[in-house]
């Protein structure tokens, strides 16, 4: 038996592990049935819409403080409101999250912080709505908690749906919401709270599969996380590189900044934010690089690859020895225009 056949056989042997369709469909129906109206998210085109604000005035907030019970929030590095212009070429711009976390369970936190265009609201379908999300893995000894805090700007709490069971009314920090707790279920503790700008804020605290946590611990942690969320956000995350000036008509639609054992990762989606992002810009691994030699970018060698119109510019040794990929079904010149203006670490 060769390796590829062994892989196929292994997959086939595990087909019976798949969950039961009827049960999954029934669970999905229960979640949908709780919604009184269809939420149809028009993807918004946004000419003239305010650009995603990148503030560089607050400190990176997610690094765990020295003491386990301290607040993990962003304290302003300087006083005054965040600036509204993205600094260009002056350095790598910190990225502001739309809300801040004031408390996290004790332990070492790895995170993925993202801000993304989630579609237009019903009232203003042409205006993109940006939502933020923190996904954290908090490790304390042998216990690993998964914490997800997400803005759901187009979903009011009346449409809340839970992974494990029915919700019940709750008020946390003066905000109305619904919560559900099933420590043994896939949802752990979940709560939707009324968002001050419309929609809801979702908080989920669960034990990582293979780890355990008492139900009350999840409830206490989830409520405390929810209670200490603050709007608007002053928390910033530091990407490995910045976009800099973008070609006319393009703007940042989303970013992801991840910090974990595998190292920091940064990614951006660039486009009109009205349709699927046209260009992906992300840190990558050297083994992924392919293509022929391209024109240099900011003193870095590049590789260029065109596969049926999907083009990739690899900027070699761009971020601490690793490459950056600028890719999309866009003209070569546009990809290089984005690449030329990236703000790279010195």
């Amino acid at each position, binding site marked *: 038996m*060769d390796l590829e056949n062994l892989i196929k056989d292994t997959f086939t042997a*595990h087909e019976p592990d798949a*969950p039961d369709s009827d049960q*999954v469909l029934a669970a999905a129906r229960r979640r949908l049935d709780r919604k009184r109206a269809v939420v149809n998210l028009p993807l918004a085109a946004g000419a003239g819409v305010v650009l995603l604000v990148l503030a560089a005035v607050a400190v990176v907030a997610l690094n765990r403080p020295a003491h386990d019970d301290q607040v993990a929030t962003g304290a302003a590095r300087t006083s005054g409101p965040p600036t509204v212009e993205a600094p260009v070429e002056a350095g790598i711009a910190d990225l502001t999250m739309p809300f801040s976390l004031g408390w996290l369970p004790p332990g070492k936190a790895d995170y993925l912080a993202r801000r993304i265009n989630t579609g237009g609201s019903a009232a203003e379908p042409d205006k993109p709505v940006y939502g933020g999300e923190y996904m954290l*893995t908090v490790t304390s000894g042998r216990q690993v908690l998964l914490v997800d805090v997400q803005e759901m700007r187009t979903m009011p709490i009346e449409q809340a*749906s839970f*992974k494990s069971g029915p919700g019940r009314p709750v008020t946390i920090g003066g905000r109305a919401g619904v919560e559900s707790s099933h420590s043994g279920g896939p949802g752990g503790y979940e709560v939707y709270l009324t968002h001050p700008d419309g929609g809801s804020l979702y908080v989920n605290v669960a034990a990582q599969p293979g780890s355990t946590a008492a139900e009350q611990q999840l409830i206490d942690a989830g409520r405390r996380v929810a209670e200490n969320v603050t709007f608007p956000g002053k928390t910033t995350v530091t990407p490995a590189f910045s976009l800099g000036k973008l070609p006319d008509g393009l703007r940042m639609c989303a970013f992801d900044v991840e910090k974990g054992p595998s190292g920091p990762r940064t990614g951006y989606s660039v486009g009109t934010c009205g349709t699927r992002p046209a260009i*992906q810009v992300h840190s990558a691994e050297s083994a992924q690089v392919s293509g022929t030699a391209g024109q240099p970018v900011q003193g870095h060698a590049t590789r260029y690859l065109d*596969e049926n119109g*999907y083009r990739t510019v690899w900027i070699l040794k761009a971020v601490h020895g690793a490459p950056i990929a600028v890719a999309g079904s866009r003209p070569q010149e546009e990809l290089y225009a984005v690449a030329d203006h990236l703000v790279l670490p010195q």
Partner: protein
Amino acid sequence: MVMADYEDFVRAHLPRLLRYATMLTGEREQAADLVQDVLVKAYRRWSRISDAEHPDRYVLRMVTNGYLSWRRSRSARLIAVGDAPDEARPDDFASDHAVREDMWQRLARLPRRQRAVVVLRYYEQLADADIADLLGCAQATVRAHARKALTTLRHGLDIDRMAQAKES
């Protein structure tokens, strides 16, 4: 009408989606959770999905993206800090089951994108061009992921010894 259309689609494709999610996550509950989330999201976006040229491919992409961006990233972190499993012992190759379980564990340790490529190529049996389209990357990237994954999976795996064990 919209709901009926959605229901028909789900009934037709759900078993496949669940099997696919199981191969990606390697874990029944996570697969159910992942697909359930996708079903809810797909319902909200159904008018757009149903207009797509290949709605099934669209939803397959949603499952893949959900896996890459969320569940798997956490699993990967957990695996990264855990102890490396022992190498399979020769005795383990005495049965097909042991061989496959060893491979299942090896698959579980792959980086998320590599595992997705392996699942799409060897389970879904998609061409590299289709995988590239689904993952939003170049074909060369798909090939690179596959090459690295196969190298990792092959490491310490004695195919010949397996064959001998089966024959004896």
